[in-house]
């Protein structure tokens, strides 16, 4: 994705929590609890969501049309039908743009440090 395309995406930069949620469901759709555990693992235990915080974030992401709710094949432990969350095409582009942004930030930082330390 080019710089121009990156700047077109609204809502950047993402918060760390949002980024990890999107990253968690980027490969395949997941249900709430799986996202919760995945984010914890991806962030090396730094981000631990409460249920309320996770669903607040999911609600915002649904509203922004970055993710979508789909019916899961597996029911929950309680027997109720479970919902999975998947990235939309727009969500994918947002995540790509964020990765690009982070890479450019990192590249700038490295270049600056190399110049400073010789």
């Amino acid at each position, binding site marked *: 994705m080019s710089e121009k395309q990156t700047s077109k995406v609204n809502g950047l930069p993402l918060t760390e929590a949002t980024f990890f949620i999107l990253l968690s469901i980027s490969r395949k759709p997941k*249900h*709430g*609890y799986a996202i*919760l555990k995945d984010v914890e693992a991806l962030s090396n235990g730094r981000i*631990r969501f*409460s*249920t*309320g*915080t*996770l*669903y*607040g974030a*999911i*609600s*915002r992401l*649904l*509203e922004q049309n970055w993710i979508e*709710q789909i019916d899961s094949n597996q029911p*929950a*432990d*309680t027997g*109720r039908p*479970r*919902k999975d969350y998947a990235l939309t095409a727009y969500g994918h582009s947002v995540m790509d743009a964020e990765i690009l942004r982070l890479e450019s930030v990192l590249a700038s930082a490295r270049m600056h440090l190399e110049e400073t330390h010789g």
Partner: protein
Amino acid sequence: MKWKNPTNKMQVDVKIRGRRMKIERLLTYIYAALLHFYPAAFRTIFFDEMLDNFSVMLHHSADFLGLVVVVGRELCDLPLNICQAHWQIYKQLSQPLRRRKRIQWVVRIFGGLIIYLLISILSLILTPFYNVYAEAVPFVIALVLATVSMIIALYWGRVGGLLTIASGAAIGCCMTLYLYVMAVTQIGVVATVLIGFIWALPFLIFGILFYELSKPPKQRIIPV
């Protein structure tokens, strides 16, 4: 090394597991009750999932300390999350619906203050030093009813509103009768009725407001 009776150990394990399940069930009930503070539109979509997640988190916590950590985290985050969810829903409303929502909250806040005032009055009246039986039993009953009605109205606006109007009228009547018996010669009939009406007025206003604001709006709320 001391030999332990395996049957006893198993019995203890079963007992502990049973107690833990009871605690988990109780905590899930409490959490379900707390989820009712979220806006209805939010609950419609996420209530079941949140409850399932919470019970799974409790179930997967290793020990009692784990349970405390899970519950503590939820309770700490809950107020802010509820506010954010309300704000998010509020942002999606159209302008007239937003105004209506604002009025609803103002009525609820002032209603809450009146409830607090009524409870304070009742706690003062219902002490052993105050001979309520000799003085104003119907009035105190009407006050209790008004308090309960307003608490109901905070959640079920229509029923609570009607009950608040009725209890307000009861308070007005009681006050009028009480003054009529005690001091009509000193203050006159008109003033007696007027004082009774003034006592009833706030409850009538709040009852009408609760009732009117609980009516479903003409425009539909955009779902999340």
